């Protein structure tokens, strides 16, 4: 008896989620539903601006008549920062909330899990942020599109700059997981191709989030490199910069660094921001194009805050999704894929196209040199690098994808 009672109690918790299952079942024919998920609790410094970005886009889209005459509704969820939890959430968005397509994710492994899920469930997934090359190449599938300039593209942009440096002895500091490993592998390959005369003299692979920066900086300095490639970001970057500065690691050495110019990572450093590093990032204060000026004005008016890279990604992702739905004129997955292939739209970074062969967008990135202005870290002389110039040709890309995709 008691057993039944306790079980009833326990199952009540599960059943609680039952009555809420109304939104999707009502099947409001007057709206198009996008299921959005991202690491809101795990990485709020990126995802909060990202949320603002896509919210702004949704307001704009609905103010101008929505999608195909229907209101665009976004159902947003936290993905828990883990692939397994993200899949639970994706299931909810799909079966209970009746999402017509999925958008989002930050971490590469979450993005890959979602892309495989999209293929299994035959629903279109637009990966916003995940950088891994596997997403569109070795694990590519027809249902997955990716917005952000990938790992390969950013590595190629940086390698191009690095090749111009006189430095011959290179050292590497990168986080010990797939992102760091593939960023380093691509950068090394491209740079060594352009500059057969250079040598790789030292490597350090601290665990992501747990760098013991003192010994790492010391070990790299001991190899006496001319230049350093850095892939650390977030709290690890702060530690590395502080220890490196104190130990003179960066003095008289060129540093090439992934992502460091993004406000998410550069701003916390304030006046301690490194000077003279060649970085990719988002210099929102120095972009003078009309597309960006319009975005900046709307964003600042709406949120009374400056945009981060997350804002651009969220804003562009939602506009890209809406453009895909408009072009397809339907929410049918096959029609959406057809519409997505070769889809062009204008983002705050300029015009982009989703390449038919690998579903990668041609959104580029800004490359510049870090400096300190008014006590804040900034990117000096930023230049926009168009994505299409840094991608392998579509024929080559198609060969990298699994057969039949």
């Amino acid at each position, binding site marked *: 008896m*008691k*057993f*039944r009672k*306790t079980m009833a109690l*326990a199952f009540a*918790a*599960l059943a609680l*989620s*039952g009555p809420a*299952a109304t939104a999707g079942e009502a099947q409001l024919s007057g709206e198009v539903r996008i299921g959005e998920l991202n690491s809101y*609790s795990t990485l*709020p*410094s990126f*995802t*909060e601006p990202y949320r603002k970005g896509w919210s702004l886009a949704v307001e704009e889209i609905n103010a101008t008549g929505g999608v195909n005459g229907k209101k665009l509704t976004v159902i947003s*969820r*936290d993905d828990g920062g*883990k692939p*397994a939890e993200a*899949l*639970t*959430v994706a*299931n*909810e968005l*799909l*079966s*209970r909330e009746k999402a017509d397509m999925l958008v989002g994710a930050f971490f590469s492994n979450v993005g*890959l*899990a979602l892309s*495989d*899920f999209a293929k299994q469930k035959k629903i279109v997934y637009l990966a916003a942020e995940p950088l891994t090359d596997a997403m569109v190449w070795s*694990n590519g599938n027809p249902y997955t599109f990716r917005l952000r300039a990938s790992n390969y593209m950013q590595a190629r942009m940086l390698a191009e700059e690095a090749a111009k440096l006189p430095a011959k002895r290179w050292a590497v500091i990168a986080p*010990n*997981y*797939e992102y760091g490993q593939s960023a380093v592998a691509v950068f090394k390959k491209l740079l060594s191709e352009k500059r057969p005369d250079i040598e790789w003299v030292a490597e*350090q*692979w601290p*665990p992501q*989030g*747990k*760098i*013991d*920066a*003192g*010994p*790492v900086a*010391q*070990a790299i300095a*001991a190899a006496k490199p001319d230049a350093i490639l850095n892939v650390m970001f*977030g*709290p690890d970057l*702060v*530690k590395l910069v*502080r*220890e490196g500065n*104190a*130990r003179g690691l960066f003095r008289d050495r060129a540093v090439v660094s992934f992502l460091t110019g993004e406000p*998410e990572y550069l*701003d916390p*450093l304030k006046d301690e921001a490194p000077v003279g590093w060649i970085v990719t990032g988002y210099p929102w204060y120095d972009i003078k194009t009309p597309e960006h000026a319009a975005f900046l004005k709307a964003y600042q008016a709406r949120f009374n805050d400056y945009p981060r890279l997350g804002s651009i990604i969220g804003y562009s992702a939602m506009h890209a999704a809406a453009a895909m739905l408009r072009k397809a004129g339907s929410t049918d997955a096959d029609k959406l894929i057809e519409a997505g292939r070769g889809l062009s739209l204008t983002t705050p970074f300029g015009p982009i196209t989703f390449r038919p062969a690998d579903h990668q967008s041609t959104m580029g990135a800004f490359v510049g040199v870090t400096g300190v202005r008014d006590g804040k870290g900034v990117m000096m002389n930023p230049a926009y690098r168009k994505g299409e110039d840094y991608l392998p040709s579509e024929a080559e890309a198609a060969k990298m994808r699994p057969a039949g995709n």
Partner: protein
Amino acid sequence: MSFWIAQFLTGLASAASLFLVASGLSIIFGVTRVVNFAHGAFYMIGAYVAWSLTERLAGAFGWWGGVLLAAAAVAALGALAEILVLRRIYQAPELFQLLATFGLTLIAADLVVMLWGPDELVGRRAPGLTGSIALFDQMIPAWDLFLIVLGPVALGLLWLLFNRTRFGVLVRAATQDREMAAALGVNEKWLFTGVFALGVFLAALAGALQLPRESVNHHMDLRIIVDAFVVVVIGGLGSITGAFIAALLVAQLNAFGILLFPKISLVIIFLVMAAVLAVRPWGLLGRPDVAQRPPAATSARPWRPLGAAGRLAMAALALAAMALPFISGEYLVIAATETLIFAILAVSLHMLLSVAGVASFGHAAFFGLGAYGVALAVKGLGLGMGAALALAPLAGLVGAGLFALAAARLSGVYLAMLTLAFAQILWSIAFQWVEVTGGDNGVLGLWPTGFAAQPAGFYWLTLGVAVLVIGASRVIMFSPFGYGLRGVRDEARRAASIGVRPGLMRWCAFAIAGTGAAVAGALFAFLKGSVFPDTLAIPVSVDSLAMVLLGGVQTTLGPLVGAVAYKALSIWLLSQTQWSKLALGLVILAVVLAFPRGLVGVVNQWRDRWAKRPPGSGEHP
């Protein structure tokens, strides 16, 4: 040469930070026997509060004053937490306090983001210690030199406190024999509060002293807590000098290890722990545990199998569960499948924790072995779903069997921590061996086939397996072997004297529990269609522990109820709010305070009361 000296000094500085956190944890555990999972949270809050104070207070005095004030304020917060939460549950089964501190950690993680915002915060550096000093042509940051001095000074001060003051004498007395100290008139309550506040003070100070080195962010808590635990265990529980030596050992091996193996940082601390425990089962300076308390699961009421009515109810429940896909949407079916999988995991941990009285902090090891077993069977051997599901549990059996052989000499928290090390080493293999496991990007495309391709089909499959596993666990529990296990758990020496072999019994318990967990892991792989190193990571271990504790460690149905309640709640909260950790933490805390014997434990108590029978007169099913 000068480089080696510089690297050594850098290692010393790293050791000092580690020691400060670990010493507080060690002191708290030594006296209160509380495995304080919230120690990392206090460390993080210390850093946040210090950031706020040092941004506002000006000058050198302001900075140092801010740091000390922050540590004192957080210590007061810690004392409050002890009075409001822990003090009420010291009588609960061992490890139950772990659940309470876990709840506190969840709350703190979300609360700091609410209060201080999502961005990481870089604080000011200590006035006067911002530069570096050239030593043997190497630049050493002045702050590092300060830390190098601080480590031994802190050790010396703590030694004086414990050996030359009345407070210290009382603390040592309570560490040795709590009941005796209480009997001699020592006010245990306030002694515990004082010790807890001291430990938290040290944690918060360590956090505040990170300001000049790193940014303050909401990941700090989990990044430090495991390392701190490992250092305490390597040093020997309750030994502050041991913690100091352990911190030195870990930091120096890391500083020099990375020169030979640049990727070693990921596992070095766990390798050191495994190596030390292999030679010294109680850590470097620890003493054999003077088992002050019986194991967690020792219960006054002997367990009894379900009666006819209970069995009927179980069968009815299973039948009712079968109907779920007919009355609910797909999402609920998938969520229920996940809940059932975690029920299997919790039942397998219960076999170890409650039936055999062996705590494990690394149950994820066996869960992950099952999941990767599936990945290997499907991708490597090209097997179908059925064969993969049948073979994958063997991975758990072999893993658990080998581990239990290696860990035969250990017991208590040391054994629990070695399971954690085992899980972490497996995790790092899955994480690093990219060619085979795909590393962090995992193994994709493991979707179920045939009738199970539909969520309802896979749900029925999982339900069937769950009924089998739960049924088997109850058969084992009430077989002569199960009674023998409980005999070993409650009185190992008496059990041995009547011919039961404690070592063999425990080994079997490990093998059974490992296989059960692997069954859950294998199903999980197919549910998600993919396997990631996360399946081997600490959160899985912590979740499974929380489920068993929540349900009631001294009961037989606890794991089932705990798993269903915990998993259903966390899935539901994830879909409802971004602050799911805060909400889950509050619920856990409420349950801990309201039902210190767990969800099922409390029902047993109520029944006793209704039946007007004295407690301990036998369990009712």
